[in-house]
């Protein structure tokens, strides 16, 4: 579904990512792991088009590397970005409407929003509340729903566990597991190796802008060694 070759990502004159290759097959959940500053978010930015990059990016076989941000999103790319970035001045429902940029029929959009309310009853409760007043976990649910509203070919998830309490993190990962069971293709970026390993099929480990190890998830056990190596924390 998503194929990346020889990707280099730049922030101004600084190169954040050096010549990486990655593949995410349809229906897979692939995780990009790495410590702070490894270049994980830069990689996602290159995929969405918000950072300057060279190299090949293919979505469903089509080369998107030269396309603008809006065009790439319209091609089937959706992201729940780092920090959630829900529109704090809009209501929950309006945030979801923002996910429906590609819908032609208002009725279709409302129906889809209904589906997400069924999946996340909390969002329904708060549908007219300003998104900025939601808790971190609720914002994460909102960001994911907003992203999935467009029926994307691949969902990019940037650090969903960031800043959330452990119970909420496990809830969010349950949601990710469900999504995967429903067949959603996911590229997950995380620092929390243990949680990520529990949902993914394949893992790439990024450090200093270079992939230094990758493989099937079962190679990495529970992810505790990885977690320790990456962050120095024993889980």
């Amino acid at each position, binding site marked *: 579904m998503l194929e990346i070759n020889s990707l280099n990502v730049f922030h101004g004159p600084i190169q954040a990512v050096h010549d990486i290759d990655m593949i995410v097959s349809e229906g897979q959940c692939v995780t990009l792991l790495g410590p702070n500053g490894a270049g994980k978010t830069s990689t996602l930015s290159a995929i969405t088009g918000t950072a300057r990059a060279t190299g090949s990016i293919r979505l469903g076989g089509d080369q998107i590397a030269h396309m*603008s941000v809006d065009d790439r999103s319209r091609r089937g790319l959706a992201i729940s970005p780092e920090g959630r970035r829900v*529109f704090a001045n809009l209501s929950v429902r309006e945030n979801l409407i923002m996910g429906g940029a590609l819908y032609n029929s208002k009725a279709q959009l409302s129906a889809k929003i209904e589906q997400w309310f069924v999946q996340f009853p909390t969002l329904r409760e708060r549908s007219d509340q300003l998104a900025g007043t939601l808790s971190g976990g609720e914002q994460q649910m909102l960001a994911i729903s907003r992203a999935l509203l467009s029926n994307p070919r691949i969902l990019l998830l940037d650090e969903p566990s960031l800043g959330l309490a452990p119970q909420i993190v496990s809830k969010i990962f349950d949601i990710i597991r469900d999504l995967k069971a429903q067949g959603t293709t996911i590229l997950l970026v995380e620092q929390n190796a243990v949680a990520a390993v529990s949902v993914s099929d394949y893992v790439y480990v990024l450090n200093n802008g270079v992939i230094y190890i990758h493989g099937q998830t079962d190679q990495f056990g529970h992810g505790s060694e990885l977690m320790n190596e990456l962050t120095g924390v024993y889980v």
Partner: protein
Amino acid sequence: MDYAIQQTLNALSFGAEYALIALGLAIVFSIMGLVNFAHGEVVAFGGYSMVITATLLTSNPWIIMIGVMFACVLTAVVLERVAFRTVRGADLTTGLLTAFGVSIVLQNLFLLLGSPRAIAATQFIFLDKTITIGTIRVSSLQIYETLATLVAIVVLTLFLRKTPLGIAMRAAALDFEMVRLCGFRANRVIAGAFAISGLLAGLACIFIMARRGSVQPNMGFDPVLVAFVACVIGGFGSLPGAVLGGFLLGVAEVTMLIILPQSAGGLASAAVFSLVALVLIWRPDGILSPARNKGDKI
């Protein structure tokens, strides 16, 4: 009592006009961070379009009115496409100076292609009649102006709340990049914002022309200056702020005209500006400055 009503109507209609133009500025700034100095020229071009339509087409004021609206929207959208797209991501100073250059270009185009002297355009003067309601004598124009502005504000609010493009514009004011990541076309959102600013300018133009009766190259300058000030005291980029600022300025101006002795009438504008400076000292970012946080960014 009658005097009070007349002066209130004065303040409302002045404020309405300022609010209309200020809203046009605010909507563009809120999304693009661009201080559109050329907005006054959009209004001026609306005036010139009256002359063009009347010469080429018809003297029917209603058709000319539609012509004005169309001309203003067209100008605004074309300006964005031609002049402002290149400086889209740039910092405040670059955008401001570009807009300011565009404004000078347009003023001089009016001068070159039109005339340095005022050209008569009296088709809307019929709107300005003195009518008597009970014991009060008011200008019909002031009533139209106030009503039209209120309607425009309501329609704009509905647009921003109910339509996807409107919601996208409100979102873009906070996080433009995320709006694009959701799949909304940046060009459409920005063109939409300029189109709206053009509509508002067109409406304001009709009322301005009903009062002036003539067009000249630099007629856009005063309105846009006042609109700026309105935006700044209301909080630059905030739409309610622009409306609030516009009406506050209307009230301030009428108040100054009332309390200053006849001889010092020329100082009304200086007095209003001094008030503005005081407001800015108290609230450097304006009274209703818009939120700047982008949510839960760690």
